[in-house]
């Protein structure tokens, strides 16, 4: 190991229940902003969210329509593959179950796609049954653009790169299609509790 820097600790908290922290993670106070590109700024008047792909008919909601859907506020721990975890984060948004309500599909996979070209893939069952949201509010405030606002996907049981910022829709698919970070060698599924960071883990 490298020489120790006397007195250096970084910004981590250590006063947390270790059982809440997946292997290899550090707990942080703040909310790091990580991105692969510039922050998009789609005007809300042009913003839509779409369910498309292996469905009879695509469904689209405008910003107003999305905000009119039943909303939930949830408190979740989130885990980034870059090793920081943030506990008890509070989000408000629409459950993906609400968005998929009544959708008939044989699809087993989804690709979430975002402004700016980002994508991430998940098994369809991982965005169902109370496991995923399209979140537009963080900590009781409108979601900041640098954190994915106006809306991001929230899938807290997986590494946070699966919670696509600036999400604009879900494409339902019969076959799996690796998304952005998955194509660059990150794990296809990404379970933090099994430390599935990279392909092959």
């Amino acid at each position, binding site marked *: *190991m*490298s*020489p*120790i*820097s*006397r*007195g*250096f*600790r*970084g*910004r*981590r908290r250590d006063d947390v229940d270790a059982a809440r922290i997946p292997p290899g993670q*550090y707990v942080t106070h*703040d909310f790091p902003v990580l991105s692969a590109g510039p922050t998009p700024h789609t005007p809300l008047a042009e913003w839509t969210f779409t369910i498309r792909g292996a469905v009879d008919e695509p469904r689209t909601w405008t910003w107003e329509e999305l905000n009119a859907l039943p909303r939930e506020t949830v408190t979740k721990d989130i885990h980034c593959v870059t090793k920081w975890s943030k506990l008890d984060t509070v989000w408000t948004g629409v459950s993906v179950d609400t968005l998929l309500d009544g959708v008939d599909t044989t699809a087993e996979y989804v690709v979430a796609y975002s402004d700016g070209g980002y994508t991430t893939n998940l098994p369809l069952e991982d965005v169902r049954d109370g496991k995923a949201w399209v979140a537009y509010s963080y900590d009781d405030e409108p979601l900041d653009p640098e954190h994915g606002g106006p809306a991001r996907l929230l899938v807290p049981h997986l590494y946070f790169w699966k919670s696509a910022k600036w999400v604009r829709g879900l494409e339902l698919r019969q076959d799996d299609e690796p998304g952005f970070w998955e194509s660059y060698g990150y794990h296809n599924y990404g379970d933090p509790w099994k430390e599935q960071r990279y392909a092959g883990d």
Partner: protein
Amino acid sequence: MERTAVRGRLTWQLATVVELIAETPRAKSIVFDVPDWPGHRAGQHVDVRLTAEDGYVAERSYSIASAPDDEHLMLTVERLDDGEVSPYLTDELRPGDQIELRGPIGGYFVWEQSLGGPVFLVAGGSGVVPLRAILRHHAAIMSDVPARLLYSARTLEDVIYRDELEHYDVRITLTRERERRRIDRELLAEVGWPPVERPLVYLCGPTAFVEAAADALVGLGHDPMRIRAERFGPTGK
């Protein structure tokens, strides 16, 4: 220093803190003894690596504040209140402490006599650090190339190297007191050389500052190929 001084393997070295100098309320210079330091070119930077007892590692880049002609390697670090590394460097380090660093790094944002001029240095905040190295080197070699610094800081007490800068051709503009003037197209035109003189421009500071200054200079007619930029950010570089 010659180019050969910066080729070769970039390995992590242990640097020992020799002296700490409080430059401003927020900025501290740290003087290091680095036994195998190969020398550097004015404008280059180093990567610094800190390791906590539990193995946690943080890495940041810092511009070299010292000139190649100076005896010791010196970095100047601005403390970011919510920073992870900078408060450690500015508040915790003591003479005798050791940190790991590797360098020198950089082949683009450098100045030496052979590059000519006139040299127009434009600094936003802590962006003045590598430009100070350039000015010190320029003075040490008694270069006949004209060189000038335009430096934007918040307040007078935020001006780093304030006494030393009086020895150079420097224009300081304060944004929160006195003239309350940001570096804009007019000020760049007023202080800098006109495009016909083809100055070699070095811009350094926060990304928004650098991009605004670059746009303004190109708008004034300067050749983009004669403008070099180094963006600083909250990650330390």
